[in-house]
């Protein structure tokens, strides 16, 4: 009896998750159709997204016009860090980026509308204003990553390939959790959406550079407190054959999937807590 009960529970949870994903797909498809009506705007925003991250990389190449190495890392190595972190961030931003609009919805009262619909709120919030033009960022970072791979002259074993793929996917999940956490935080502090930028945009700015550039306290902080180091630093150092400045045990280079799972659990719990704490502004 207990077994069938827990089985039913599991099926209900699974069913809800599948429904959440399907609903996300419906809403995203709707936004894609609507943005496709303004093709010039779409093209401009695609180019703007491409250019905005390209400028970050332009600043890095300008630095390397003056120096041969930064923190002991060459340009292709920094490009590898840049490419991996920005592709991961771009994926998270594409899929969950609009979760940062929670504060605005709480302020202007439109959060109530989401609660009345028979769709998980997170799906609605994340798919809201889904914009394919954010692919521009992923495309640009992908090109830089591709360029760095041709320059690095690494021996591409199966292990390295697997690590590269898991780096990008787990990195996207970790950044996605930061977006969800940021959204959840805004249930309590509606005006504080900018705090999130410190971890998202601050995070990719940090991860573009080698960890040797930063103070050890900062590196410890982004390893153990906000686990951004698992997005690319630790696995990338392993791929590049570098020692990490903290001298952490070698298995931590492979811990990104576990860390990503833990982040999901934490972000999910806090999102639900935030949603429970929500109090309507009324109208």
């Amino acid at each position, binding site marked *: 009896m207990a077994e069938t009960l827990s089985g039913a529970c599991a099926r209900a949870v699974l069913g809800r998750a599948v429904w959440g994903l399907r609903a996300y797909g419906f809403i995203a498809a709707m936004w894609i159709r609507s943005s496709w009506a*303004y093709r*010039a*705007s779409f093209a*401009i*925003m695609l180019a*703007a*997204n491409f*250019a*905005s991250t390209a*400028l*970050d990389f*332009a*600043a890095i190449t*300008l*630095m390397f*016009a*003056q*120096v*041969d*190495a*930064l*923190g002991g890392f060459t340009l292709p190595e920094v490009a590898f860090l840049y490419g991996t972190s920005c592709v991961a961030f771009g994926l998270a931003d594409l899929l969950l980026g609009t979760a940062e609009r929670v504060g605005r919805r709480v302020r202007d009262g439109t959060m109530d509308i989401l609660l009345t619909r028979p769709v998980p709120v997170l799906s609605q919030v994340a798919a809201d204003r889904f914009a394919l033009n954010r692919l521009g960022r992923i495309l640009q970072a992908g090109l830089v990553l591709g360029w760095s791979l041709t320059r690095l002259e690494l021996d591409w074993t199966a292990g390295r390939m697997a690590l590269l793929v898991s780096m990008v996917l787990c990195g996207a999940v970790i950044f996605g959790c930061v977006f969800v956490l940021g959204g959840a935080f805004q249930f309590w*502090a*509606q*005006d*504080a*959406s*900018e*705090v999130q*930028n*410190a971890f998202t*945009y*601050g995070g990719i*700015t*940090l991860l573009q*550079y080698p960890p*040797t*550039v*930063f*103070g050890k306290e*900062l590196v410890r902080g982004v390893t153990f407190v906000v686990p951004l180091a698992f997005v690319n630093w630790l696995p990338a150092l392993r791929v590049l054959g570098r020692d990490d400045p903290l001298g952490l045990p070698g298995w931590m280079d492979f811990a990104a999937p576990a860390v990503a799972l833990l982040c999901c659990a934490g972000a999910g719990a806090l999102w639900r807590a935030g949603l429970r704490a929500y109090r309507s502004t009324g109208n």
Partner: protein
Amino acid sequence: MHLLRLNLAVAASGFRRYATYRVATAAGVFTNTVFGFILAYTFLALWHERPHLGGYDQSQALTFVWTGQALLAAVALLGGGFQDEFHERIRNGDVAIDLYRPVDLQLWWLAHDLGRAAFQLVGRGVAPMAAGALVFDLALPSSPAVWLLFLLSALLAIVVSFALRYLWALCGFWLLDATGLSALSTLMSLFFSGMLLPLTVFPGGFGDAVRWLPWAATLQVPADVLLGAHPGGSLPGLAFQLVWAVVLLAAGRLLQFVATRKVVVQGG
């Protein structure tokens, strides 16, 4: 006299409007400080490899970083402030009402933006700079005269930034979609102001060229005034800002004149 009182009142309301959002201000200070730390470490690494790069020593380079973070909100280096609001009024046609009012449109928004900037210079500038000075060895001037010159330079930077954003917003009379334009304006501002990397570090002829663009007046010049980095003193830098401020404000008037003559206002 009446004009001055009016514009002071508009500026005061701009100040109060931004001062209302205390949590948002605290959040902004936090983010500026985090970015300041990240950039400071990368600059440390860069100046460790190449001391005296761009004519700055290490502590001057760090001061540049924190000056950028302190001015980011006040000078609106990421765009925004009145720009989005004004553009929206052009897009939905409310600008027709603004044009009927017995006040000058450009002066109205300038006063409003100066009020906003005055709050953000204090509210979002002082704390990140103090945090930077606590942790890093900054090359801050001890003479009050230099600080006064810096304040004057910051004021001119705000006016140049305003004039640029006014021009971007006016483009809305012809192009209805704001998002692409505001993204473009933010990009140009970030790159050519020196926010990503001081313009003195840009190599060769490209570096020489970008130092003459108006965006140089929004961060590079105020930072150089604070650092005392100009060999010929601060006055040429201030004159450079003043010239761009006058030219761009005049261009804004001209474009507004053309727009209000030729373009049919949206709405109904």
